[in-house]
């Protein structure tokens, strides 16, 4: 509840400098139909409906709705089984089509959903974290990725995690140890002036595939 209060406070500033994601929904649907059939189309419809419903809603409603939508719509899986690759960044359409994905696919889905709803991309960061499994004192941990919402660059982020529907400030997630983060404005090596996200090969691949599917990022 504490998180919700904070989100409510931040929501006042929502929309500033926001560049919304655009897409051609008909083309998305036809791509989905041809690749993944009616099940995929149904999940896509749900996503579009959610986005439509959350349009112009306050941020404190949008963040949990988006988080919950993706956590419920997608089953936790591994890239090696889904894509036969050790690591694959799937597009939102691919994730919805498969109905399954790994932690990065959740983060990507949430990132573009929030961008669509008008959240400024510089406030969103993709964070590599070490997640401790089990309770306090457990030594078992996994490599994980979450989406962080930073109201200001220096602020404590809200964590949108695929393992939890609940959105909490980072300080309350003792199980997560952040290792590295980046966003669409791109950071690879701090201080490198021309390094944009476009030059991150993985991100560029993702955007290119999205463009083919009907997104206009």
């Amino acid at each position, binding site marked *: 509840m504490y998180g919700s209060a904070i989100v409510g406070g931040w929501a006042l500033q929502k929309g500033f400098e926001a560049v919304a994601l655009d897409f051609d929904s008909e083309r998305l649907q036809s791509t989905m139909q041809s690749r993944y059939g009616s099940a995929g189309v149904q999940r896509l419809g749900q996503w579009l409906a959610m986005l439509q419903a959350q349009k112009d809603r306050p941020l404190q409603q949008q963040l949990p709705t988006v988080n919950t939508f993706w956590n419920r719509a997608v089953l936790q899986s591994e890239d090696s089984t889904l894509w*036969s*690759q*050790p690591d694959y960044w799937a597009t939102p359409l691919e994730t919805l089509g498969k109905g399954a994905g790994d932690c990065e696919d959740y983060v990507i889905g949430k990132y573009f959903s929030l961008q669509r709803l008008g959240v400024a991309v510089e406030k969103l960061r993709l964070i590599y974290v*070490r997640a401790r499994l089990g309770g306090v004192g457990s030594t078992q941990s996994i490599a994980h990725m979450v989406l962080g919402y930073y109201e200001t660059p220096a602020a404590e982020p809200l964590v949108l995690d695929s393992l939890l529907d609940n959105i909490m400030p980072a300080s309350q997630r003792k199980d997560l140890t952040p*290792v590295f983060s*980046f966003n669409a404005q791109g950071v*690879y090596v701090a201080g490198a002036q021309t390094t944009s996200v476009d030059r*991150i090969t993985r991100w560029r*691949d993702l955007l*290119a595939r999205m463009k083919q599917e009907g997104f206009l990022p």
Partner: protein
Amino acid sequence: MSLLKQLLISVTVAIVAILIGTLAFSIGAARQYLDGQLQSESENAASSLALSLSQPANQDPVTQELLMMALFDGGQFKLIRLASPQGETLFERRRDNGTSESSAAAAKPRQSAAPRWFVEMLPLRSPKAERVISDGWKQVGQLTLVVDDSYASQALWGSSVRLAGVVVLAGLAWAFFVVLLFRWFRKVLQQEISAQVQAIGRQPDGAESAQPAKAAVAELVPVLSAIADTRERVQATALEQMARIESLEIEVNRDPVTQLPNRKYFVNELRRALSGADGLAAHGHVMLFRQRDLLALNAQMSRASADAWLAAMGEQVNQVLKSHADCKAQLARLNGSDFVVLMPALAGPQAMSLVQQIRQVLLSMRVTLSSGQWCRWSFALTDYSASSSVTGVLARLDYGLMRAESSGQAEVEYVAYGDDEVVSDLAGETLWRQMLIAALEAQDALSLSVQPLQFKGSNGMQERGEASLSLRTASGETLMGSLFLPVAVRLGLSAEFDLRAVALGAAWLEQNDCELVIRISLPSLAQPDFLGRLREELSAQKWEHRLSLLCLELDAHGLTAYPDEVAEFCRAMALAGVGVGLRRLDQQPMGLTKLHTLPLRYVKLGSEFSEQAAQSPGALHLLQAIAETATALGIQVMVSDSVNAETAQLLHRQNALTLAV
């Protein structure tokens, strides 16, 4: 190949080589730089990652995996691999260009990427960096890192394309410049050099001859001045040559003695006149006159004074010609004794007054030979039409001259062009016809001039008159029969004139008691009513008693040309009591065989033949044969020209009469 072309081609080759070299070196340098950068990037990234992974806080495998994933996802690497000291791979992320689903998608944004051939041609070293990571004192693994070089390739490709573009642009600019240079150079050469060189051949005219135009190109200044010098020299030489050619032409075309045009010049002029090149109808007359006694003159005077006399004669004739400037007549000396006057553009009778004036001048300038005789001129005249040939005209003149010389008279022998000419001088003939008919119709236009001649024979002197018809024109000039009768023959009017001559002769005999010779044209005999009208004329009562003094003379040529007519004529005249004579029998020796068939009163021989007889045994035999045959037939032999004493004696022995001086 032109010098300029060679120069430009060599410069172009050099420029192309420089541009290609620059391109190759630039690309090579860029590639080397990129290789170095990639290598250092690999080394730096490997060092940083190894440093992070070696920290005590990061020894947890999950943290290590996260660090490596974050680096791989956020950076541009082909490969990040962590292997245990035993070589077992603990973590690996590899970017494959051929990954399943991403490949098709990735193809599109990579459109601007370097083409495969370029990458294969200029491969970048995939810089691999290896670092060992440690946990405290212990080595726990080997980190391998390969940086993705596709951006470097793309940058290299991009810069190569731009550089090649600049090179091509520079090449095109150079080519354009070369084309402009070529055009400009051609223009300059055309304007400066060609114009100047062409001016060499032209005649210098005031404005142009001054100085060459200022050269637009500094390099051409010495060339232009050399050309100008050459031009001046060439022009000076050309002027010299022309003066020389002119003097040579004068030498070639002039007779050195009289300064009159020579035979070559005359023949050319005649040919030009015959071709109608002057724009006038090719009709005119040519008069030839020969000094028959040039040898004797040269022997008698000094050669120099003979030459001076000839020059003076030429001068006098030229004076006459100048007074008829409109007819453009020209006097020329054909050879030593022969002179010729070309009278183009004088129609018909107009030429005759000029001919007579020339004859008068020449006769007035005669000198006396040592033998006491006047030196002799013989004259021949012919006319020509457009179809005449030079040889035809000259042959007629020679024929005329021969006739004049054999007749022994200083009359002009007019040999009109005959039927063989295709084109006749219609305008001239019309004028002639009008004049001749007018003369026949008028009462007093025609008159008979009688030249009294003394003939000497073994039996003493004999006197006779030789008549010739003369015609007074409307303008008051008097034309001799020799000048208009040939035309009358051509126009078919000879019979009329012959009849008129006979009538006038008969009238003359009324007052004179002397044998009178009247010449009858041969073509008149061929006219069907001529003989009848002649008989009618002669049968007039009033002349009956004088007819025996009348003698009609025919040319011996008639014996072969008109044998029947001549025979009939002779018989008719014998019946009428009129004598018939033959002249120039020596030219027709075949006529000798017919003498016995004709009642003739006399035959005439030329002096040339008679004089030949004194030297040539053959000619002597012929002369004797003629004389004997004639004497046997009762025909008198006469020589119509003065002969030397030796020949005269010979002839007198043969009962021939010779002309007494």
